């Protein structure tokens, strides 16, 4: 029962985030993407509330954390007119089958412990369990010098989220925490399904979601991410990127992307590289509002990281954040990192995910600004992945071997985003024939 309640709190995150979806964005978000965006905002609000409560010395309870988001959701539902309710995009049976198999494989691999990550046992689970027992971010526990390996200033989103689930379930459920992988993978597939629908017909959107589900089934279990923060991080990263690819000009999109970028930096330090890459690439995209949009998107992650830094500093928790990283650069070390990263990139299937995405990119004709955004972010995160290993003074070989495949998921998902960012189906044909009428799922006017 503990495990079921634990997983249920994760599955029900969209309920907590529904009231936070900007009203003007709710008007154009297709249903699957609306669920995914609400889930992401639900996770953000839970983590931010728990962080704020810890900073203010308020003990966590499920009711205290969930009350505000639930009230906002109820208010939103009460204000939603029946005419505003939207339908689910249709999908061809084959696309649905592919999505189903992809999610089934991912779920099976996670729940049968085929994809368990050791960091769950050594790090993430221990922290979440302790936070739940202390009903707050347990500063004395983190500050204990004996616990240095728990990385006292590591971003708190996942331990807070799991602590919330633990409070609801009355215990931290080790086995159920593995389900975080399929739950967030499912949200990502829904995000792609809905957001791709904004720029394509039902068939294109469903096929895009099927590609994403297959990509996840091939790489996530093989990278051993169940119980680690990577599924959550990749969900936030990819959804933010897809929002900018398919909906950058739509009302409220920039704000949602900014909130997701804030979640990235609160989930893992590697999220900072993605945010830097995405913001840099978005400045290169020739759009009239690019500077304003980039500033809005940068403000939220900057505020989140600053708040966490101030909290850690004021509580004596600074560790990695306390000093700028130093690069121990040499040709030999760089060569070793690249060799191990290359080995990790195979995912045990002869580089199949890279070959498939390369072939997809070869037959994709996406607008140049979309490729700039997705491929630019992929390039920055790929370089950052190599450089991050050079910040270790010792031999980085084991570190790369341990985590290389996981870190490469970010640039890889950016490449898949580029590969499925082509406007397609009836929507593209109608645009190419001069008909500027938007498809039914994208009926809201641009800002």
């Amino acid at each position, binding site marked *: 029962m503990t495990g079921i309640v634990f997983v249920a709190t994760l599955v029900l995150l969209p309920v907590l985030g529904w009231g936070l979806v900007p009203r003007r964005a709710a008007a154009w978000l297709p249903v699957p993407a609306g669920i995914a965006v609400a889930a992401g905002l639900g996770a953000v609000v839970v983590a931010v509330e728990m962080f704020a409560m810890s900073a203010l010395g308020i003990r966590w309870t499920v009711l205290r954390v969930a009350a505000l988001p639930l009230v906002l959701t109820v208010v939103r539902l009460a204000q939603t007119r029946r005419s505003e309710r939207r339908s689910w995009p249709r999908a061809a049976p084959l696309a649905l089958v*592919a999505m189903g*198999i*992809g999610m089934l*494989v*991912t779920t*099976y*691999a996670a*729940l*049968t*412990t*085929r*994809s*368990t990550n*050791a960091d*769950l*046992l*050594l*790090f993430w*689970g*221990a922290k979440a*369990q*302790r936070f739940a*027992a202390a009903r707050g971010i347990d500063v*004395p*526990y983190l500050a204990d010098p*004996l*616990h*240095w*390996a*728990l990385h006292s200033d590591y971003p708190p989103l996942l331990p807070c989220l799991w602590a919330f689930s633990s409070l609801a379930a009355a215990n*931290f459920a*080790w*086995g159920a925490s*593995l389900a975080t992988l399929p739950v967030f993978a499912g949200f990502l597939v829904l995000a792609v399904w809905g957001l791709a629908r904004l720029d394509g017909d039902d068939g294109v959107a469903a*096929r895009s979601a*099927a*590609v994403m589900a*297959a*990509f996840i*089934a*091939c790489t996530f*279990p*093989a990278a*051993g991410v169940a*119980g680690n923060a990577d599924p959550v991080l990749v969900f936030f990263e990819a959804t933010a990127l897809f929002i900018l690819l398919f909906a950058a000009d739509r009302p409220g999109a920039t704000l949602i992307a900014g909130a997701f970028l804030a979640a990235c930096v609160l989930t893992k330090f590697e999220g900072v590289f993605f945010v830097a890459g995405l913001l840099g690439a978005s400045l290169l995209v020739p759009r009239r509002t690019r500077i304003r949009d980039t500033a809005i998107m940068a403000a939220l992650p900057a505020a989140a990281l600053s708040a966490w830094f101030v909290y850690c500093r004021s509580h004596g928790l600074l560790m990695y954040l306390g000093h700028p990283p130093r690069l121990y650069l040499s040709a030999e070390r760089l060569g070793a990192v690249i060799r191990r990263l290359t080995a990790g990139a195979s995912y*045990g*299937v002869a580089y*199949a*995910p890279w070959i*498939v*995405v390369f*072939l*997809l990119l*070869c*037959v*994709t*004709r996406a607008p140049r600004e979309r490729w700039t955004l997705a491929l630019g972010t992929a390039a920055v995160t790929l370089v950052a992945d190599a450089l991050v290993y050079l910040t270790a003074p010792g031999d980085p070989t084991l570190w790369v071997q341990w985590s290389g495949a996981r870190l490469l998921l970010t640039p890889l998902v950016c490449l898949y985003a580029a590969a499925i960012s*082509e406007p*397609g189906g009836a929507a593209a*044909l109608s645009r190419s024939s001069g008909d500027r009428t938007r498809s039914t799922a994208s009926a809201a006017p641009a800002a």
Partner: protein
Amino acid sequence: MRPTRDLLRRAVEAAGITILLAAGIAFCLSSGPILLEPPATMLSHADRAMRAQEPFLLYLRDLDRRLPPGATLAVLSPQSAADLIGPSYLLPLGQLPRQVVVPPALLRDPSALPPRYVAAYQSAFHDARYRLVSSTADGQLWELASPATPREGSR
């Protein structure tokens, strides 16, 4: 041209989806036959290096049942001699949340208060301050002979 390219794109998508799903299924099959019963621990079907820790995980689970809440405890394992406050310490730390786990290194620190219990998993332990409480094939549980001086639980 467009219908031809659309067909090509669909063909590549279909082939790509098939290859990726087949790779995912192959990964699941590579780590053992398809089972529908829940695994015994989080490591039951993990990769070989992690799976080797499963008996230790089960041992810790048993310790959690046997030791009183709040008791201080050091867990010795074959790895703990070389790995003072790394995984061999972090694993018990997470698995024994009701007890206060201290690093085995404290046993060698004359200025530190000793923990009330020492669990020696597949490793030898002898300290005149401790008496043997129980012994199994997997390990021994020792308790401080003089209960007046154990390290107090701080968590």
